[in-house]
């Protein structure tokens, strides 16, 4: 039953484009899906290692810009008359390079700021996001600045001899985002259930104790930062190729806050939390739009967030798990060893 549940959920979401013809709603599903991927990546840092990255949108934006620029090409003059010309590359390579470059920045920020922890990490991450936003705004030659990068080609998937497919329609983009979301979910799920995930939780819970049993703090924090940043970059790349236009506003602090709200209301440190929180806060503006003025929409958004955290301070998913008595991760170990579990019950 418990094993079938994720498949059932996946099946429901896979069927959405088959019965939903409203392009506006489908668009809402796609952008929500992109932000859920970003929120899941933030959850890896915030929920499992306990580090709050308030500059997470930087990785999202770096992924978006890198991916767009790789597929569009650019021609910039650097210092001392060095000129860099880049011819457009296939779009799928933009997605991969965008993910890798975001991951690389995750490594740099991780190395730099995990020497300073907690509040200092929050400050470093905010500053980093603000610097990337200013670069995107002012390096006009590369990014077009406030004029935005336009005509970004849709993602294409080419197979030699078979032909290629481009993700131009809303339906195809929906499945693309769903696919990347599932892959991200599987990566995080495998990671947190492994020895690596246990090391991350150990660092969050009690760092001195963790190092005393031989866990290398920096290594696992940097690893979490790299994977988290790369995943956010992949989400940013999907966003750029879907919208076909990006401007420095992708680096807005507001987007980071949106991701944090999704993670915290859904339940940080749970696999399903960012998905549940993401769906709720991705769709509140959509639903509220049909009956409320723009200002009222934001008030509803805020009120709903406060209500959830007031009633369920741990988030929605932990509350549901508690309510239905869903077994947690350690119980899986018990299930995998029925013989010894029985003897333990008997004693």
């Amino acid at each position, binding site marked *: 039953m418990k094993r079938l549940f994720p498949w059932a959920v996946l099946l429901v979401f896979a069927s959405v484009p088959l019965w939903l013809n409203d392009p506006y709603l489908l668009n809402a599903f796609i952008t929500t899906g992109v932000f859920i991927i970003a929120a899941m990546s933030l959850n890896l840092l915030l929920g499992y290692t306990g580090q709050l990255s308030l500059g997470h949108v930087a990785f999202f934006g770096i992924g978006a810009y890198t991916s767009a620029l790789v597929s569009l090409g650019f021609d910039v003059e650097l210092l001392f008359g060095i000129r860099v010309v880049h011819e457009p590359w296939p779009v799928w390579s933009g997605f991969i390079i965008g993910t890798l470059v975001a991951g690389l920045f995750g490594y740099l920020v991780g190395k730099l700021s995990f020497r300073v922890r907690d509040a200092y990490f929050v400050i470093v991450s905010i500053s980093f996001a603000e610097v990337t936003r200013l670069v995107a705004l002012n390096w006009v030659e590369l990014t077009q600045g406030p004029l935005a990068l336009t005509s970004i080609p849709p993602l294409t998937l080419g197979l030699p001899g078979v032909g290629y497919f481009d993700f131009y329609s809303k339906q195809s983009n929906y499945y693309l985002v769903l696919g990347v979301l599932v892959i991200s979910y599987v*990566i995080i799920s*495998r*990671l947190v259930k*492994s*020895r*690596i995930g*246990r*090391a991350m*939780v*150990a660092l969050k*819970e*009690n760092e*001195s*104790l*963790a*190092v*005393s*049993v*031989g*866990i*290398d*703090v920096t290594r696992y924090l940097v*690893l979490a930062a790299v994977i988290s940043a790369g995943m956010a970059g992949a989400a940013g790349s999907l966003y750029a190729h879907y919208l076909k236009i990006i401007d420095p506003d992708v680096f807005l602090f507001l987007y980071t806050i949106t991701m944090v709200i999704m993670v915290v209301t859904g339940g940080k440190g749970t696999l399903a939390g960012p998905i549940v929180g993401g769906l709720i806060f991705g769709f509140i503006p959509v639903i509220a739009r049909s009956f409320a003025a723009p200002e009222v929409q934001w008030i509803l958004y805020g009120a709903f967030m406060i209500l959830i955290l007031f009633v369920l301070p741990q988030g929605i998913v932990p509350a549901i798990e508690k309510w239905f008595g869903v077994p*947690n*991760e*350690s*119980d899986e*170990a*018990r299930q*995998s*060893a029925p013989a*010894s579990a029985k003897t*333990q019950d008997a*004693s």
Partner: protein
Amino acid sequence: MTNSSQTSKQPVLTLEHIAVHFGGLVAISDLNFVVNEGEVVSLIGPNGAGKTTAFNVVTGFMRPTKGEVRYKGTSLNNLKPHQIAELGLVRTFQRTSVFQNVSVFDNVMIGLHRRGRSHLWDTLLALPRERQSERELRDKAREILGAVGIEHRAYELAGALPYGDQRLLGVAMALAAEPSMLLLDEPVSGMNPTETMRFMELLTRVRALGVTILLVEHDMPMVMGISDRIVVLNYGRIIAEGPPAAIQGNPEVIKAYLGQGAKQRARN
């Protein structure tokens, strides 16, 4: 100075001229002692004598102002705590000795970290090596919980355990990290006599595995009962060193720490 049967063995842990200053405060002035392989050594002394500081220096949580710590010939001065744990020198903590919000079983799984053989790719691609390594770790965790005697509480949150069991879990985690030497910081403080007895039995078994033990403890019956050798600290320096019987009768130790009651008991 010592006449224990263990002294013929090789010294594994050596502290040479260790000094620790916090600003103007001298926590440890000049500490020299060795622990030999397979020995149980206790570090005792009044509060503030520098026992926990000495522990922190040995395990890399604090840098000595002067002097050198060596374990099996390797200098520990510039190593990080997790690197020292890699060498097999594993400690427990005085107060927060377990991960409170994690199940007892997973606490031991975390302790087993060093024994895992799977790499990042094994985990991400769910390769057979990952499953095999996890299975081995789970078997090992059950074995350790059984050895310590808290397997019936495996799936409770560690923070929900009674105090005595939390201390046992702390030791279980330390044992999971495959120590060749175990440093225990007041392991039986807050335990009742029955729990203390259980703990001493456990230490005897751990010792039989060949693990060297350095103990900081205030519980004198336990210290006297289990130690091969005792090092007495006062105001950051050693005031006496020797087997339990000699320490119990040492007038300076009685004056500084044990008190006159101990003198009378020793005489009886």
